[in-house]
């Protein structure tokens, strides 16, 4: 999922200061899974914002809504019935959702409530870790299912570097060395000899390097 974390309250209160009525929109997908912006979090943030305003002798009316997803225009359209009553919108979805709302409602200020962080997986309840950076040319088949681009601090394709210590990265003793993980997997699969196949320099055009990307499926386009 795409993971995110709520922004500090100070920042959120500051950007909503000029308003009295807002629409607070959550998302039922990724941010629900990582407990950052789902229905529950919308309720808690709404209460926190209202209390922060009340404390200063002001009021903030918050209309709470949680959409199925904010990255599809069909769902964002559901905000139409409530958008006029709000002076501003605060979205608890990832950056994709915030932008979809901004695109649809051009004259309504939209603010992000969370900092979108990474594409990751749940290691266990309450712990999410980065797994993918969307490089556009997946090499997981060569590296035993562990991504060196997302999980090696130096994104080495022919690692490890000389700083790998006890299976951990030199940057942080709690961070796994991706190349140790890759080596362990190659061993478990009995394909250690693949390690010496040098992986060629990456073409970053398939990644962010080529500019913002788009996928067009001709068979699905109306």
């Amino acid at each position, binding site marked *: 999922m795409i993971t995110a974390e709520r922004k*500090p309250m100070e920042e959120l*209160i500051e950007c909503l200061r000029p308003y009295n009525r807002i629409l607070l929109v959550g998302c039922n997908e990724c941010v629900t899974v990582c407990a950052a912006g789902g229905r529950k979090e919308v*309720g*808690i943030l709404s209460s*926190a914002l209202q*209390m922060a305003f*009340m404390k*200063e*002798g002001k009021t903030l009316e918050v209309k709470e809504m949680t959409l199925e997803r904010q990255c599809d225009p069909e769902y964002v359209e559901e905000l139409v019935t409530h958008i006029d009553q709000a002076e501003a919108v605060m979205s608890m979805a990832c950056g994709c959702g915030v932008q979809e709302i901004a695109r649809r409602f051009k004259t309504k200020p939209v603010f992000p409530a969370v900092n979108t962080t990474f594409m990751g997986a749940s290691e266990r309840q309450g712990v999410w870790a980065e797994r993918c950076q969307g490089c556009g040319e997946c090499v997981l088949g060569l590296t035993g299912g562990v991504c060196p681009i997302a999980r090696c601090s130096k994104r080495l394709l022919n690692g490890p570097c000389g700083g790998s210590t006890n299976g951990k990265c030199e940057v942080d003793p709690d961070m796994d060395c991706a190349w140790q993980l890759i080596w362990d997997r190659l061993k478990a699969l009995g394909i250690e000899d693949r390690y010496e196949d040098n992986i060629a320099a990456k073409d970053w055009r398939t990644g962010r390097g080529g500019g913002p990307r788009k996928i067009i499926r001709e068979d699905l386009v109306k």
Partner: protein
Amino acid sequence: MENFEPTIVAFCCHYCAYTAADMAGSKRLCYPPNVKIIKVPCSGKVDAIHIMKALEKGADGVYVAGCLEGDCHFKSGNIEASKRVTYIKKLLDEIGIGGERVEMILMSAGMGERFAQTAADMTEKIRKLGPNPVKFSPKADNAA
């Protein structure tokens, strides 16, 4: 503020804390009327939003009372509740309401005295902290 009578909401778990309250009652132990008890099947049933709403609606203090460590009827509801209370305390500090207004308290079913003492202590602590600042708002909902 003179003569400030705080309103405290106490979420009490059925198996321990609420039973302790009953015990206090049957032993004729006094505790302040400021404490309003809400019975829950387990302290783990108390979610962050319940605590937030209590404060939003004007409670001056909130505590969640559950079983002693290792004694939870539902295994670890009290531990989950403790973690949530810690999280909410931080959030309340961030918005300036103050995490001290919320506490997690553990007791066993037979601890009538502890129940009464906790109620008194919490009332005094909140009295010193003063009224919940949300009451400064003109539109504050002061339902106690």
